[in-house]
């Protein structure tokens, strides 16, 4: 039993790292422009398909294709922001929510029209490989996905903390007017932030492709997990999303030891609701 739980914790951390990158983009977008992107999980799907297409065309491993996927999804996300999101930034919340819901419809249906509804996957040499430490097994594709996620999270941190653009982005999220008075163009920042947020979701999609199938509605599997993670970490808090991702990953995996698979998500939602009800600003409470 103890071994089972330890194993679950290890798996949970590995998956949680991916959840973190999934959710960090959502948190970034909310933090900068107070929009909850209900289509965020479709950008995961988009990233998976792009990585799949690259693999199918030139045989490049999805992990190695991360830069390509990031740039492609970033560009697409930035364009979506400029054309669709920017016009509703000052609109009532209901317009913002349903605009992203409409976007989600379009992306899922678009993927189905392009790729069909079939489940696709890639074949990698390390697909079934695993490392063994004592009694613990570490699956290689999970480990690679985790490491790639960790690198992305570190790069994001460096961008936000160490570059002028990153500082400008944080400044805009904290006080838009004051940022404008510093010569920062918020429209440009919003575009880049949305591109980054969606690009990160795309990366998460690419890194899980070695162990997950891609199909048009694959994003729905991740959307509620993603909302749980950002709520747990505090909507809009980037560091909170990272911690939240790891926590949810571990809870998810450990609860699977005790509960039937179908009920795995019940625990996650219970945590989600409890957080909303008792600590709506998140466990870390960065931004209420």
């Amino acid at each position, binding site marked *: 039993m103890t071994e089972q739980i330890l194993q679950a914790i290890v798996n949970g951390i590995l998956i949680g790292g991916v959840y973190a990158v999934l959710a960090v983009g959502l948190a970034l977008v909310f933090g900068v422009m107070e929009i909850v992107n209900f289509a965020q999980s479709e950008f995961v799907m988009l990233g998976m398909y792009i990585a799949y297409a690259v693999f199918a065309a030139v045989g490049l491993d999805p992990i190695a294709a991360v830069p390509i996927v990031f740039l492609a999804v970033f560009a697409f996300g930035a364009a979506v922001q400029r054309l669709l999101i920017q016009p509703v930034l000052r609109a009532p919340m209901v317009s913002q929510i349903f605009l992203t819901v409409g976007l989600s419809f379009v992306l899922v249906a678009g993927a189905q029209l392009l790729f069909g509804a079939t489940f696709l996957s890639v074949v990698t040499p390390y697909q079934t490989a695993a490392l063994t430490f004592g009694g613990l097994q570490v699956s290689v594709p999970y480990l690679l996905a985790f490491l790639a996620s960790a690198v992305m999270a570190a790069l994001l941190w460096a961008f936000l903390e160490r570059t002028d653009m990153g500082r400008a982005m944080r*400044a805009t999220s904290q006080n838009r007017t004051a940022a404008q008075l*510093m010569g920062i163009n918020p429209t440009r920042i919003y575009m880049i932030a949305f591109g980054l947020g969606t690009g990160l979701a795309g990366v998460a999609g690419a890194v899980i492709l070695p162990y997950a199938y891609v199909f048009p509605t694959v994003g729905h599997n991740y959307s509620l997990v993603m909302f749980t993670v950002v709520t747990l970490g505090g909507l809009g808090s980037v560091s909170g999303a990272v911690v939240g991702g790891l926590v949810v990953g571990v809870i998810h995996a450990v609860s699977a030891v005790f509960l039937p698979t179908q009920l795995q998500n019940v625990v996650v939602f219970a945590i989600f609701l409890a957080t909303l009800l008792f600590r709506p600003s998140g466990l870390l409470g960065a931004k209420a």
Partner: protein
Amino acid sequence: MLLEVSDLRVSYGRVNALCGVSLQMDRHQCVGVLGANRAGKTTLARAISRLVPFQSGDIRWQGRSTARMRPDEVPGLGVAHVPEGRQIFKRMSVEENLLVGALTADSRPHRAQSLERIYALFPRLGERKAQMAGTLSGGEQQMVAIGRALMLRPQLLILDEPSLGLAPIVVQEVYRTIAAIREEGIAILLVEQNVALALDCIDRGYVLENGCVAVAGSAAELRDSAAVREAYLGL
């Protein structure tokens, strides 16, 4: 002429906030915009920074109209604005706040020197450069706001209610700093509701009432004006 505001009208919906305000200022001058709360002072400052649109009139910077500019293009002209209520970036360190102040093409290359200069002007900020700005006292936050604006190396500094909510002793410190900035040759547009305080430091002033200029003149003229004495100095 450094800055010329002519017949500026601003309205929010049907509500008139400014009813044709004109104002001029030259290089190295310190000009006050005075009056009670809601008289339109902040609206005027925000219009100059292009944060609020205006319906008619014009704003000219060194002869050039800024009517079509976005707010984020104004700092590039050399106009820095310390907004009402300080509006610092609370969850960034003091130094990061200052660095964000020097993002324009003209100011960025000089930002190391600018930092040194700000820390010399406000030694307290130097001691606390790694501290989160939101955890500073009100007076220190005002210093961050002013320092951040100075990082731009501006020709004109707009100060909106720099004394707001500060203890008297801190207010005096802020005003000493304003005097020091003047000495450096930076023009200052001072928005202040505490008329008595402002009169000591301005060359000329405009008193706004209900969005219109009620009285304008040199500091001495304002001090002698019966209307100003009765309405704002409590005499």
